[in-house]
């Protein structure tokens, strides 16, 4: 199939449709409103359901209702809107429903700014809403990867009956790149025999997250924990870059920041400093084992982020005290330059401190 030039937000929308994400609810918010604008036109053409809701609170609960009735329901938003969706996401996780949430992250906290950020890492990978749950979290670093991720996100949401969150910074949503929509063949999914589709010839299906009996609530928590363990075994995704030859520094970065690190690695090489990159693609589950394996070969690790330091805690946790783990980040919507990353690496090589 030939490539077409598309803006990230529109490419995500088109890819979701092709993956069968035909029930979409939204609320406008920069920098992801193009998804809604695209789908307002496109959904009627493909016989899908599109609705602009009254708030992100309502959006997440509409997704909850539609997912409960067996639909491939999804939404997109940006940081402040995702915060409002946390109620619904928690209920979706608690009721074990599949749904896909795309967060085109902007700077924060509060209303923040509309420029790219990775400041929602904690919210995305540590639960976010109330209660003992997790989302499967995927982070694309190009428009093509975002396009490829949507079918995977829907498949895994269905397979695990769990919310999947695709976390792209504002760069991913706004930039235009050539993309190709591939055909995907996932193994068959189990039937949605739990969905509320009308109790015809069967017992009623109840979509619910209320368990007043603590023993039964704990059963749910144990079942969810087993699900997350399975994700840790089977859903870890990452990219290694330049790790096939010796390196002094291991950069760890995801999303747009990882692309900047690749340029920085080339600039470092020109100055005689060897560096490699580990790019987590799944943020939960986090590639802990890979961090440890690759980190052991480096003098130190540098987590590069568009935040004041969030993923670095997971890098630390994976690496333990075996090697120093340093952090470099820009925030507020400022994208770090390759030169800044180079400077940060050299400062730690020379100074030996973060």
């Amino acid at each position, binding site marked *: 199939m030939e490539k077409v030039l598309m803006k990230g937000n529109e490419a995500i929308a088109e890819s979701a449709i092709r993956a069968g994400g035909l*029930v979409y609810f939204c609320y406008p918010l920069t920098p992801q409103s193009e998804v809604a604008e695209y789908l307002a036109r496109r959904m009627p053409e493909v016989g899908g359901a599109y609705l602009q809701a*009254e708030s992100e609170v309502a959006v997440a*609960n509409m*997704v909850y209702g539609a997912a409960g*009735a067996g639909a491939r329901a999804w939404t997109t938003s940006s940081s402040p809107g995702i915060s409002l969706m946390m109620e619904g996401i928690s209920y979706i996780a608690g009721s074990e429903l599949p749904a896909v949430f795309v967060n085109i992250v902007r700077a924060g906290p509060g209303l923040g700014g509309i420029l790219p950020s990775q400041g929602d890492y904690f919210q995305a990978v540590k639960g976010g809403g109330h209660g003992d749950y997790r989302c499967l979290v995927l982070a694309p670093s190009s428009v093509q990867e975002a396009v490829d991720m949507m079918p995977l996100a829907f498949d895994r949401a269905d397979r695990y009956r769990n919310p999947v969150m695709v976390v792209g910074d504002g760069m991913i949503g706004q930039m235009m790149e050539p993309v190709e929509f591939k055909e995907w063949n996932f193994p068959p999914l189990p039937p949605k025999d739990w969905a509320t589709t009308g109790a015809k010839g069967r017992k009623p299906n*109840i*979509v619910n997250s209320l368990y007043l009996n603590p023993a039964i609530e704990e059963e749910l928590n144990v079942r969810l924990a087993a699900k997350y363990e399975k994700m840790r075994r089977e859903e870890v995704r990452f990219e290694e870059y330049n790790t096939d030859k010796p390196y002094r520094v291991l950069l760890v970065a995801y999303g747009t920041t990882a692309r900047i690190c690749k340029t920085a690695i080339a600039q470092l090489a020109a100055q005689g400093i060897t560096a490699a990159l580990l790019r987590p693609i799944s943020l939960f589950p986090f590639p802990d084992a890979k961090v440890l394996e690759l980190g052991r070969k480096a003098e130190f690790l540098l987590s590069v982020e568009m935040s004041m330091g969030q993923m670095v805690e997971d890098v630390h946790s994976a690496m333990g005290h075996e090697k120093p783990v340093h952090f470099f980040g820009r925030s507020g919507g400022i994208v770090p330059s390759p030169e800044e990353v180079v400077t940060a690496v050299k400062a730690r090589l020379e100074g030996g401190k973060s």
Partner: protein
Amino acid sequence: MKTLFKRPESLTDVATHYCPGCTHGIAHRLIAEVIDELGLRERTVGIAPVGCSVLAFNYFNMDFQQAAHGRAPALATGIKRARPDLICFTYQGDGDLASIGMAEIIHAANRGEKFTVVFINNAVYGMTGGQMAPTTMPGQVTTTSPKGRDVNDVGYPIRMCELLASLRTPGFIERVAVHTPQQVVKTRRILKTAFELQRDNKCFTFVEVLSTCPTNWGMTPFDATKWLQEHMVPYYPLQNFKKFEDEESTKPQASSSKPEGGTNAG
């Protein structure tokens, strides 16, 4: 032998947790009878709220989803948009619908979502132990209005039917009660109309049911029905607010892009 009275198929054969004298049981039964009568049980999805009726899914013999507090109309919207062939109703109390869920109910009504809302108004938060609700009567003592609802401090109770009837889109809005046999019979008829309109894909349908809460009102069930009649009915008149008659009256006129003035055609 002719059967004169039996449990509707749409109810499960379990005892409810509702307090003696509470009218939830009557409302449940009426909904179940209507769904049975219309033959809709096998394609109905109910939405349970947060409140005393949070466990409604245990009492209705049909598919159910349990909503976050106030969000039942959003869930119902999601279900009906994804599966317009299903019948969907929300069952919500006054704290759920008129306080935390105000945005969801107003906008679902204004979009003309094709589901049915059964709004149980008993003027108090029941499950959490009798706190003041948006529908608590002026002067009514609750655990959070120990000197009675002070309208100068927290305003007058919200009349949801009247509020929603000010919108052009919603097609059927009626307030009923279940504190007398006559009212019970009438409520059954109104619920049937609401579900018929939904079945025929006509309009948003809203039925407010004035209800008693003897436990939190601190009254006997009999005194509670008297209090409802004397205090609630004058403020919350039992009447129809919108009848679905003329299709044109509830549909926006596609040809006009200018703001419209004139009368509310509802």
